[in-house]
């Protein structure tokens, strides 16, 4: 269906090719997962399928990509629109119309599909992706997850034979992600659609993939093979695979069901080690950093937060979870003093953040927004660090030193836009941390992060907490919560529905439980590292 023959691609002005001598054949009806570290060329590979690379991006492509016999050499992306549907990383930026229904119909209108066929396909797609409640809504009023589903629906409507998705679930909560992925598998199984997708959160997609393409980056050759085979040696692997390697299970289980079948002996072995489940860090309510008192926030008729009472103490890492649009980002914006509450109060060390001038506020609370890049405007990393020092009145070099503590080895001469996702987050985090605020907020920090960068982030956050800072992380990433959080909050419809020790909250929820907990339930183990510690001491 898709054939890459000896494809080498170099971006304009790049010293080395992003893809070198790629030979790849993807069969019809396959769900093919593209994995690799950030910046390894996954997106380039995906965009080459419908010819956006090189027709749209420029650069030099040698070799040939053919899709269903049509070469991208003579067919620009628009001539392949009936064959290949592409969903990008940022769905909101790709919308052409203003309402859900019209957006779904847009591609079909371009293809000249008959009106009654269009009508039926739009209805089918609305049902397939659960969008019927939103059909008349204006696109700009949708939440991130809803926008993602509309973007997928918009390409599905044109009934392409191939669907290409770049991180389709990175903005979605676990339940919505599951839903999108199961609709994708259904498309593969029932209509034989070919799906190629790139994703960092392997734990979500691994069970669905037929084959994995590992892009090692730096122009090294691709590794292609059945999922289990590639995962056995892959540098990036989901917790379930790590656990299987630790326990020595063969063949490698890829789904929770397969792993549970193998896990009987391990569960038995761990049974008398229950006392070794790490205790929850007790927190002192007298050391409160921030207090939220009967906080309500309304946007017009929409209630984003509904009289929420919370207290955040020193040394805590609090994970704020909940589905898309449940009020997580609103809570962070309130704590950071970006918006005034409609009702109730927020106080950080006794001060209202909205009353504190910006220059003083950064010494009180720091927020790393979802797209960390918006914090950066400098020409180089060095420039960014020195500006931050100057503006916040710190001794020159503080931010740069902080950056080395967060992530060493970032070239001071690079442009912030050229950094990888992980490096950009590190730089933003260093700038926020340099004035040493006692309350640090992160909004969805693992979006687009590969496993090594994520591990780095976890250790940074743990260090902050043990130094007595309070860290609040709004996230959909249950594995991150399992690794770092001491306390978990679940929001729904602007209300706090559960608040407690992270281990209890996530283990009791089928949606928020991490993979290890699902495999070893009912024992409350959360991470592979915990199991490793127990087994190693045990010998």
């Amino acid at each position, binding site marked *: 269906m898709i054939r890459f023959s000896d494809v080498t691609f170099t971006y304009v002005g790049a010293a080395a090719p992003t893809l070198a001598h790629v030979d790849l054949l993807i069969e019809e009806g396959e769900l093919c997962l593209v994995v690799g570290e950030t910046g390894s060329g996954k997106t380039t590979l995906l965009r080459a399928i419908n010819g*956006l690379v090189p027709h749209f991006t420029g650069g030099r492509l040698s070799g040939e990509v053919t899709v269903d016999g049509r070469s991208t050499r003579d067919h*620009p*992306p628009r001539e392949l629109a009936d064959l290949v549907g592409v969903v990008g990383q940022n769905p909101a930026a790709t919308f*052409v119309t203003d309402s859900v229904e019209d957006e779904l119909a847009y591609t079909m209108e371009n*293809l000249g599909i008959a009106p009654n066929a269009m009508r039926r396909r739009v209805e089918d797609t609305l049902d397939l992706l659960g969008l019927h409640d939103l059909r008349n809504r204006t696109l700009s009023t949708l939440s991130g997850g809803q926008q993602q589903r509309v973007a997928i629906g918009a390409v599905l409507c044109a009934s392409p034979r191939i669907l290409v998705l770049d991180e389709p679930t990175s903005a979605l909560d676990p339940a919505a992600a599951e839903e999108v992925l199961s609709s994708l598998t259904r498309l593969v199984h029932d209509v034989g659609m070919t799906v190629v997708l790139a994703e960092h959160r392997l734990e979500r997609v691994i069970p669905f993939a037929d084959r994995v393409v590992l892009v090692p980056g730096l122009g090294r050759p691709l590794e292609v093979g059945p999922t289990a085979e590639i995962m056995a040696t892959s540098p990036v692997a989901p917790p379930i695979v790590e656990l299987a390697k630790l326990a020595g299970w063969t063949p490698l289980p890829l789904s929770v069901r397969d792993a549970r079948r193998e896990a009987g002996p391990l569960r038995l072995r761990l049974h008398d080690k229950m006392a070794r489940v790490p205790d929850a860090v007790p927190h002192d309510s007298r050391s409160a950093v921030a207090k939220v008192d009967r906080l309500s926030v309304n946007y017009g008729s929409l209630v984003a937060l509904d009289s929420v009472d919370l207290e955040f103490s020193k040394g805590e890492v609090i994970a704020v979870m909940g589905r898309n649009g449940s009020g997580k980002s609103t809570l962070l914006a309130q704590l950071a003093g970006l918006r005034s509450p409609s009702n109730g109060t927020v106080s950080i060390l006794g001060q209202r953040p909205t009353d504190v001038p910006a220059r003083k506020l950064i010494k009180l609370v720091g927020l790393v927004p979802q797209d960390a890049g918006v914090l950066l405007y400098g020409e180089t990393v060095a420039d960014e660090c020195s500006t931050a020092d100057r503006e916040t009145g710190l001794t020159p070099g503080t931010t740069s030193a902080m950056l080395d503590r967060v992530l060493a080895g970032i070239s001071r001469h690079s442009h912030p836009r050229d950094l990888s996702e992980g490096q950009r987050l590190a730089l933003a985090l260093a700038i926020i941390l340099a004035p040493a605020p006692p309350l640090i907020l992160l909004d969805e920090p693992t979006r687009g992060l590969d496993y090594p960068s994520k591990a780095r982030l976890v250790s940074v956050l743990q260090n902050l907490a043990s130094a007595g800072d309070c860290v609040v992380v709004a996230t959909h990433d249950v594995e991150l919560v399992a690794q770092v959080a001491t306390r978990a909050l679940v929001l729904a419809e602007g209300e706090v529905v559960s608040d407690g020790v992270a281990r209890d909250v996530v283990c009791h929820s089928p949606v928020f439980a991490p993979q290890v907990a699902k495999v070893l339930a009912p024992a409350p183990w959360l991470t592979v590292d915990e199991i490793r510690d127990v087994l190693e001491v045990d010998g």
Partner: protein
Amino acid sequence: MKVRRPPASGRRGLHPAAWWLWAACLAGSAIRTTNPLLLGLIAAVAAFVVSVKRTDAPWSRSLVFFFRLGLIVIFIRVAVQIIFGNRLSGHVLFTFPHVPLPTSEGVSIGGPVTLESIIQAAVDGLRLAVVLVCFGAANSLASPYRLLRCLPSVLYEAGVAVTVSLSFAPEVVMAIANVRDARRLRGRPTRGIAGLRGMAVPVLECALDRSLQLASSMDARGYGRRQVVAKRIRRWGAGATAIGLLLVCAGVYGILDVGSLPGGGIPFLALGALSIGGGMAVSGRRTNRSRYRPDVWRVPEWLVVGSGGVVLASFILASSLHTAGMQLQVYPLQFPSLPLLPTVGILVGLAPALVAPVPRSESITRGTPSHLGPPAADADRAGGLLA
């Protein structure tokens, strides 16, 4: 008048052109009077219909903006009158120092300011403000995007450009908000010259990014696939449509500016419509694009446009009969009366509040993941996608 209940479902709201025509009739009526009571009544009718029929869409909130704009217009009109205006005789309120001008025909700076002149100016301003409110009402009731979709397919390209720029504005607003937040998070100024300078570059960068992503998305989704229509036919079609649109514009001008064109602009309107129809017939059939759920023109549309027409007709009739109370009298100063014919006419303009179909619920539901049906049923739906 017999009122039909709007059909409960199957509609996506009234045809946008019907709203615009209705609003244009109200605006055309407002131009024909200086009676503040009638003007106020027209604005009230427009505002009432908007409050009943508007949706949750972002553009629906624009009426308040138009009201504010109207107030500014009145203020400016009065201020200009006080400073430069024609010196009318009457009750002198206060006197400004007078600056003699060499050719002082009607225009002067300073001088005595009379109550009559201020009232005259305020009513003038009010008339313009009410026209603005009428167009604001149309803007709140009909999605600008759906109005563009009604354009004949030969003008499709122009429509896309306008749509993109329309959707671009909220993006920029959002980008500005994000950049402001980011600056506050870094403890930088968000106001004043320093704030403005620091914000311009990131906002532009964001705008550029967005346009590139949009362009690639449109390309990937088949925008600009090869057209099979012969060039000559397309040119004829486009020419006829463009001429038609110009004629329609002239017609609307004739209706709004009384007595500027023969027949009040109606013949221009009719000719324009014919020409557009011809242009569409020539080229529209042959384009390989299709349209999803084109807006339909049915009874409610006729009723809405008809009600607007009744308002306009009552005003034209009252003017030609020289009905007392159509124009405000300032010599002697007296409280305006309410002439019967135009008042009844305006009330007919409320009809859309009853007859226009309500777009189906657009209540804001939260980002709830919906739950799919049983797998077997969904398999059939998936099959339908490729059918």
